[in-house]
C-alpha cells in the first residue's frame, strides 16, 4: 500500500467511487469499498504532501 504511486492511488480511488456509485454492491462489499477508498484518499494526500520536484542534469557527451 505504501509503495503505491500517486497516480495509481488516484486511479484506484476513482474506480472505488465508481464501484460504489454503481450501487450493486452488497452491504459488506460497500462498506469495505468505502474503507478502501478512504485509505486511498489518505495515500493520495500523503503523496502530495511529501512531493518535491527533483531535478537532474544530464551531462553532455
Amino acid at each position, binding site marked *: 500500500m505504501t509503495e503505491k504511486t500517486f*497516480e495509481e492511488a*488516484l486511479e484506484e480511488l476513482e474506480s472505488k467511487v465508481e464501484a460504489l456509485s454503481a450501487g450493486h454492491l452488497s452491504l459488506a462489499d460497500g462498506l469495505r469499498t468505502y474503507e478502501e*477508498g478512504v485509505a486511498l*484518499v489518505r495515500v493520495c494526500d500523503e*503523496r*502530495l504532501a511529501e512531493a518535491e520536484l527533483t531535478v537532474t*542534469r*544530464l551531462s*553532455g557527451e
Partner: protein
Amino acid sequence: MQTFGVAALARDALTVTELVGALRSAVARHPALTDVLVRGEIGSVSRPPSGVAYFVLKDAEAQIACVLFRSAAAALRFELRDGIEVVARGDVDVFPARGQAQLVVRDVSPIGHGAFWLSFEQVRDRLAAEGLFAPERKRPLPAFPRRIGLVTSEAGAVLHDVLAVLGRRYPLAEVLVSPCLVQGEDAPVSIAAALDRLAGRVDVAILARGGGSLEDLWCFNDERVARAIVRFSAPVVSAVGHETDVTIADFAADVRAPTPSAAAELATPDVADLKSRIEAARAALRSRVRETIEAWREAVATLGARIRPEAIRERVQDARGRLAAAGESLRKEARRLLSAGRDGLSGVAGRLEAVSPLATIARGFAVVTREDGALVASVSAVSPGDEITVHVSDGALEAVVEERRRNGA
C-alpha cells in the same frame, strides 16, 4: 592582305585550347573574379544524379552559368529553384569544353524578405510528404508523467521558468534536464543529441527556447531536429520562441505550446486540480456509502414487511405457551424431586432411630452398667455382690447382683 599566305596564318594561329587556356588563366588570376559575391535570380536549375548542381544566375541584362559541386550542393539549407533571389559566393572559371565562363559556387543563400521562409517551406513540404507531421503520428501526452525531460539551454530564463511551473503544478515529477545549444550552426546537432540522450528515460519531453530573431530560432527549422523529435521514445512538447513563431520543430512535435511555460503546463496535471479530484472522490465515497447503507436499510424494511408480523406474533405466542408449559412441568418435576428427597430423608431417619439404644429402651428393654460404667452384656461381666445400674427409658435403678445364672445352665 595578300602578302600573308594562308599557311603563314595557320602557323601563327592559336589553337582553341591555347586561347581558352589563356582566357582561363587571365580569369583565374583576376582579383575581381576570385572569391566574388554575386547577387541574382536563379534559373535553369539542373541536378543530375552525380550530385553536381547546374544553374544560371541572371538579372534583367545578363546571365552567368553556375556550377555547384557535390559537397557544396549537399550542404545547402534550401532547394535550388528557378526564380529564387540569391547571393552566391565563388570563383569565376572557364569551362574549357564549352569555352564559357562560369561561376564555381561554394555557397549560396536565399536573400530578401522571403529567403528564410523559402527554405522553411521547402523543408516543411519535404518532411510533410514523408508523413512526419501526420496527425496519426501524434502521441497523446501522459496524464501523470513521472519523469519529464527538458531540452533547452542552460543559460537563460527558460530553464528556470519551466522548472518553476513544473514545481508549482506537479511536484510529484522528476525532471531530467538535457542541455543543448539553442542557436547557431551547431545547435541542430546539439538539440538532436540532447533529445537522444533522454530517449527511454522520460515519459514526456519538453523542447524549449525563449524568444529570438528569425535567425536565432533557425536551428529549430532544421531537418535533423525534426527527425530527432519524430524518433524520440516519448511524446514531445515543443515551445520555441513566442506564440507567433512557428518552426519545423513545432510541426514535428506531438504537441506545440505557445511558450515554454505553457509547455510545462500542457505536459503536467495541476496539483490543485488533483486535490479537488481527491476531495470530490472523498465526498462521493461518503455520500455513496451512506446511500448504500440507506438502500440496504430500505431493502431490509421491505423484506420485513413481506414476512407478515401477525405470523411472527402467532409463533411468538405459540412459543410463549410452550415455554410456559415447559416451565410448569419443570416446576412439577422439581417439586416431585424435592418431596421424594424429603421422603427419602425421613426413611433414613427411621432406620437411624431403629438402631439407637434409646429407642430399644423405649420399648421396655434396659441397659445395665457396672460401677465403672462398662456395659454389662454377659453374666461373666459381674460377680455376686457387685453394684450395678439398670438404665430404663425414664431413669435408672441401683441394684446389687445376688446370683449369676447363665442361659442354658
